[in-house]
């Protein structure tokens, strides 16, 4: 009984499809017979196409504009929230390293310094490593290793930052506390950069935060690099090899120049994440509003300052934190802009050569 009903339903649903197929077949066979009708339908089709195209273009535009609107809205609302401090303290907010909620005297220099320094350390460590990983995975790794290793690197990206923070605090900080006396004794003796590696071996500080950040941004950069390295035409590489180039020469003189724009894009994707990273940094940076010459000393970053203090902040203090948030927008924008300009100059110089 129920089987019958199912058959019936199936029949009903199945019916129209063959019918339509027949109709379409008829239509395809008929044009020579009635060309006027066909032109008319062609015109109608073309009109519909342009209309649909217009709609689609509008939709795409709306998607892009929405992002722009959200970005602008977020930046403006943080600026508005921080107007009391931005206008009240003016340039002093940018130039002062004081952060005193008791007397309501705020300066953003220490968090900005910490943000830039930790991100820079992260980039310096992550970029060469990511380049190596991507090259290995695309050029020299045996095929059976490429899959698992690639997945392992990508897995790093999916770990939430709080886990990195806890790993940093409970595993990496004690390790760094053992390494730092050795760093002070060796690198600390060097001229010029020696002072960067002197200080009490706390295990936490700018260097530790930079290294944890490097681990976090590594998968982003290496994933982008791997993708674009794979896109380099095989003929180019084979030709270079045929001319007697070593693997390194191929990587440095063929693969990298060919993919430069995308590689720099990947690096700045990682940099963007490093600049805004909050939880992991909060755990290992030391959260101290100090600008010190040593990378072993604690510091603070914009994002971790906000995360730490927002909960209990009222009045001017809250305004100062929102101003700090606006500053993060500005810093990120400035860094990305600098990257774009750098890229454009490099391309132009290339063109002249």
């Amino acid at each position, binding site marked *: 009984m129920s089987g019958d009903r199912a058959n019936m339903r199936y029949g009903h649903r199945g019916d129209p499809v063959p019918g339509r197929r027949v109709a379409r077949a008829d239509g395809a066979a008929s044009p020579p017979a009635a060309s006027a009708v066909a032109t008319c339908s062609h015109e109608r089709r073309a009109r519909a196409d342009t209309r649909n195209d217009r709609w689609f273009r509008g939709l795409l535009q709306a998607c892009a504009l929405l992002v722009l609107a959200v970005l602008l809205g977020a930046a403006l609302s943080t600026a508005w929230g921080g107007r009391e401090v931005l206008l009240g303290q003016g340039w002093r907010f940018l130039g002062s390293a*004081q*952060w*005193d*909620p*008791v*007397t309501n005297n705020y300066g953003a220099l220490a968090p900005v310094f910490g943000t830039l320094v930790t991100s820079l350390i992260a980039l310096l460590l992550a970029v060469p490593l990511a380049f190596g990983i991507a090259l290995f995975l695309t050029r020299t790794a045996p095929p059976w290793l490429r899959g698992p290793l690639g997945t392992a690197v990508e897995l790093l990206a999916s770990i939430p930052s709080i886990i990195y923070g806890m790993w940093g*605090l*409970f595993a990496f*900080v*004690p390790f760094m*506390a053992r390494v730092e006396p050795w760093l002070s004794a060796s690198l600390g003796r060097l001229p010029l950069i020696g002072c960067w590696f002197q200080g*009490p071996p*706390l*295990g*936490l500080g700018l260097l530790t935060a930079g290294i944890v950040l490097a681990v976090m941004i590594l998968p982003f950069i290496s994933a982008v690099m791997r993708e674009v390295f794979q896109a380099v035409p095989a003929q180019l590489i084979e030709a270079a090899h045929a001319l007697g180039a070593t693997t390194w020469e191929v990587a440095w003189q063929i693969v990298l120049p060919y993919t430069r724009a995308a590689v720099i894009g990947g690096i700045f994707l990682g940099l963007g994440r490093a600049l805004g990273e909050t939880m992991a940094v*909060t*755990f290992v940076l*030391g*959260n*101290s*509003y100090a600008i010190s010459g040593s990378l072993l000393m*604690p510091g*603070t970053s914009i994002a*971790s300052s906000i995360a*730490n*203090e927002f*909960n*209990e*902040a*009222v009045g001017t*203090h809250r305004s100062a934190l929102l101003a700090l948030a606006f500053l993060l927008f500005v810093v990120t924008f400035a860094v990305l802009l600098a990257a774009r300009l750098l890229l454009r100059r490099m391309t132009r110089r290339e063109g002249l050569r």
Partner: protein
Amino acid sequence: MQQELRLNTHTHHLGRCALAIALACGIGSAHATDITGAGSSFVYPILSKWAASFATQSGHRVNYQSIGSGGGIAQIKAGTVDFGATDMPLDKADLEQHGLAQFPDVIGGIVPACNVAGVAPGQLVLSGSVLADIFLGRIGEWSDPAIAALNPGLTLPSARITVVHRSDGSGTSFNFTTYLSLVSPQWKTAVGSGSTVQWPVGIGGKGNEGVAAYVKQLPNSIGYVEYAYAVQNQLGYARMRNAAGTLVEPGRDSFQAAAASVDWAKTENFAVSLANAPGATAWPITATSWVLMRRQPQDATHAAVALDFFRHGWTAGKSAAIALDYVPLPDTLVQQIEAYWHMHIKS
């Protein structure tokens, strides 16, 4: 005989339970009220315990959000919650301007937690001014003569002191810095007191647990945490020389002594800090948390339930407070608060 007695109390217990359940069901279905509070994170653990037992007893639910003292003050001023909780008392003018009443809800203690090799918990002795100098960075090594003078029998390493403070705004920091301001003029002028201050030295840990973790990990460090965290994490702690010059051990007795050494009746709206309390056996860094309520509540039943909730906490909730290492309010203080309610809160 003894067995009979036990049996007797047992049945008595059962009877009370049944009554409580019956009451809970009856009242719960008839008119359960949901009240909301917001503020101090210092009291969150005990308020949530009290809320659970209050719900089974009365059927009313208390929803408390620990958004920080500043947030609690803002919310009760805006009238979006039935009560606010704050670690820093408001002054009379502020209370009157916003039509608020204020009374304490629970007392707790903050202890200097330290991790010094070869020093057992409770072995180290500190005074207020030495503690302030350590947190100012003026005393940089454990072998400093000022520390040695307080600890004649103790050999302290000549190692750098690593100071650990809170990185987030907190009532614990407020109470700690209030104490340091009271005992050290230098601290008062250089740093002052607040839930977030400009720490001259040291590193910041997020939350009591963050500070506890840093102190545990970093050798030769000193920080400050709520007493419960020092106990739970088995941290080394220091004994303190209090305002009367006595050497006191942190714990319920010395916290209670601090609460008892203040003449609450002479205070206005109970706005008195227990920091550096004068009692002979008082723990110097004792802290109170206050509840803020509207004098003219928008909803009288909500206010009545809120008052019932605190009454419940001070009577039936005493053991829960003790279990969480808080100190319940002394009975005399509870009576004074009840009289204060009568005068100031319409419900």
